[in-house]
């Protein structure tokens, strides 16, 4: 079984807090597929640093407001 990545995130909470942005809309905005957003939310994929910054910038918050480290 694949090891769970040590990076946690609040992408789902952020989407809901920002008027229910869809996974597809967020994916389009940062340049990944809807499935990748789903994988990030389910902790099955840790995004690249660039995508992490893009997500944080999309929500107009800092990276550490969206992503955390539980390693």
């Amino acid at each position, binding site marked *: 079984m*694949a090891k769970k990545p040590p990076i946690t995130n609040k992408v789902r909470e952020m989407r809901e807090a920002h008027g229910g942005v869809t996974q597809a809309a967020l994916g389009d905005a940062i*340049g990944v597929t809807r499935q990748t957003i789903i994988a990030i939310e389910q902790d099955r994929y840790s995004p690249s640093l660039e995508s992490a910054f893009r997500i944080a910038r999309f929500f107009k918050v800092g990276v550490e407001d969206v992503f955390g480290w539980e390693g």
Partner: protein
Amino acid sequence: MPFREKSAWVMAAIIAITAGLYAAMVGTLPSAVPALPVVIGFVVALAILSVFGQIAIAVLSPKDANAAADERDRQVTQRASSIAGTVLTCGVVLALGTYVIGHGGSVMFHAVFASLIVAQFCEYALTIWFYRRGV
């Protein structure tokens, strides 16, 4: 399900079916000599089924089919290809070993061909695994 995972499922199924048929046909041949018509038949069947399989899933999800690979797709592909490459290398080395210990060129041919098929199947299986369980 990501388009590339659907594609990997289709390709894994096609390879399993065509390779099974190929192995069954080769097994019934009177000698171990590689039969060119069977090899060509396998390759042509694989190519035709792959094209129709890919068209079918593209028709069912045209938007996903036209989307470029994103960072996760590339990471999955790279890891699956890397491991499949190692499988192929091991298979070829084993095939060369069969020749060295005196099994002849025919056995080596079949072993190399089997390595190609197994490595390709591994690549699709690993692609599915990484999409479902994480890269």
